[in-house]
């Protein structure tokens, strides 16, 4: 395992960013699914409905992938913090015992 650098604020901002993107994609997917196709003529409205259904699903899948990014970044953030905090507690306990 090589060196690593972690800035907690960067991870926090990253998770926030991906949550916002997830919200944008989730609502975009909903907008597609809800888009009214009744304005199209009867000869083509079925094709349009099928198109929006397909793409709504595609966008929804992308939204889920983005949500996963946010969750994984959050998990990484918590893990880094947890490891740091555990180490801090361990050393503090050791210092207390030693004094």
């Amino acid at each position, binding site marked *: 395992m090589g060196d690593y650098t*972690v800035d907690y604020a960067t991870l926090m901002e990253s998770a926030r960013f991906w949550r916002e993107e997830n919200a944008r994609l989730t*609502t975009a997917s909903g907008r597609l699914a809800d888009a009214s196709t009744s304005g199209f003529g009867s000869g083509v409205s079925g094709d349009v409905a099928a198109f929006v259904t397909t793409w709504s699903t595609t966008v929804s899948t992308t939204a889920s*992938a983005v949500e996963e990014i946010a969750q*994984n970044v959050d998990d990484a953030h918590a893990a880094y913090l947890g490891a740091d905090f555990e180490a801090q507690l361990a050393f503090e306990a050791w210092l207390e015992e030693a004094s």
Partner: protein
Amino acid sequence: MSITIPADVPIIPWLSGSPEQVVAFADDLLSVSATLDDLDTTADANATYDGWEGAAADSYGTYVRAAAENAQTSSLALRAVVQASDTYATELQRLLDERERLVDARTTFNADCDSLRASVDAAAPEDDLTELEAVASELATRRTTIVDDIATMETDTTANEDDLRSVLTANASVAAVLAAPGGGIDPADTAMGLPGAPGSGGSAEDVAAWWAALTPEQRYAVLAAHPEVIGSADGLPAEVRDEANRALLTADLEALELLEEQGMLPSDLRKTLENAQAAHEALELLEEQGMLPSDLRKTLENAQAAHEALGNVVVDPVSDPPVEVPPLLHLYDPNAFDGEGAVAIAYGNPDTADNVATIVPGTTVKGTSIASDVRNAENLYTSARVSDPSATTATILWIGYDSPEFTDLSVASESMAIAGGERLADYVDGLNAARAEGDPAHMSVVGHSYGSTTVGRAATDHGLDVDDIIAIGSPGLGDEAQSADDLGGPEVWVGNASRDPVARLGDNGWVGLGADGLGRDPAEQGYGATRFEAEDVNRADESESADWGFTGNMNGTSLDDHSRYFNDGTESLHNMGRIVAGDDGDVGTAEGTHDPWYSGPVDPEFDRDPQAQPSIVVEPDR
């Protein structure tokens, strides 16, 4: 002799569909397309961070790029269908119009056949039927034409649907898009690289010329890929800006409201994280370092205010029957000025209206103010239309600069007016550039309070290209405007109400704030402006003793009188409507203030009884 009467034309085939609903569908798709395109760009920018390095960070970067890999392809697919839908809607409208024409033609034809039949039945055997034969012949020709036109309409309907269907098929999936020749190449990239593109440093005229030279496909491409650029690009058509800004607004509103529901706005997130033991100390550190993420709540509030303002129903006061005036979202940047927001809404189309007026508000105005202040644009629109019903009008409420807090006004610096003046001059250049060549508008700007200082700086520093400058409640038009001549040529009008304390802040002779203020009193005799009557029958009582914290004599004033200029029934709204409409001769002028050697400034308007003006604003069911 027998006469052959043509058969009736059968019922015209029904044509289903609504162009308006198709356009609304296309707008929805455009908004989704913009979201996907945005993901592609921002994912790339967020695949690596300076503050996170190591094996996990590398894996994260690979995952992020993969997740967003097809976003642009998806965006391109939706964009193609947006364009195809709009084309379909235009053709559908033509076909519906054609069907209506054919229905009328059929009705008339069949009635004429009935009439001929009756004439033939009534004819006696010895009558000369030559005339009836000619009518029958003419009817036969008409029938052929109508039947042919019906067949053409049916063929065109099928072709219209086939055209749309082929675009749907070609864009049915990511794989289908990539398989097409040139698939995955974004025409927006080419368009944004052309000379004159917004952001390339060109003038508003350059931007207008750039847009005019784009192909329809490129226009759709830049709308979807760069709505934030198109929506605020000075020089572009107002309806294009409106489409881009509404797409942004829709996406912002829906996404941020979802985040709010989930309790995931940063301010809520902070509370959540504060409860997490492991994060507690880190949060404290981040807070000390000022590194907590910016608050999206401000963005949401700005979006909600713009949405509310767009829902304000304006009824044209002179059209018969009454018609609603649709608003155009001419500027929308909820993150501008550290989240204060920038927004502009127009009533009427500034690209085509005979008279165009831009209102520049003053202190304490921010993006959320649009929800209430948009009524000022409504009232001015109404006043100008009443003044000249034969002329078309557009009025704009422009919140496009960072304005100071009101409490700072008595010692306000001109720095924000200087920066805002440059933005305003660019904005007005954009309004002029978006007009058709040879069709200039009668262009006005109305600066209220500190907004008049901003207007003044736009004129003295950047040659504000308007016909009329209207300053109301003005504490001064800036140090560079020592007289109306310094404003570069527009006709200068001043409506300073005598009971408005802010209007007393301008310098009169040696009296005033001097270097601490915002310039000379433009309502003063000898300044060179035309002062117009701007009093309100509800103004403050002359005996009112007041101390607003401003320097100078403020007795007989009320801050309420600083906010009445656009009120229905006031002299100022009445006169501003006339100025905006170019009816200069009908403006009620007022005597300027003067500064005798034996006392402080004297305002003759203080002792004049104001006149109530007719109420003109049409109140729909709000």
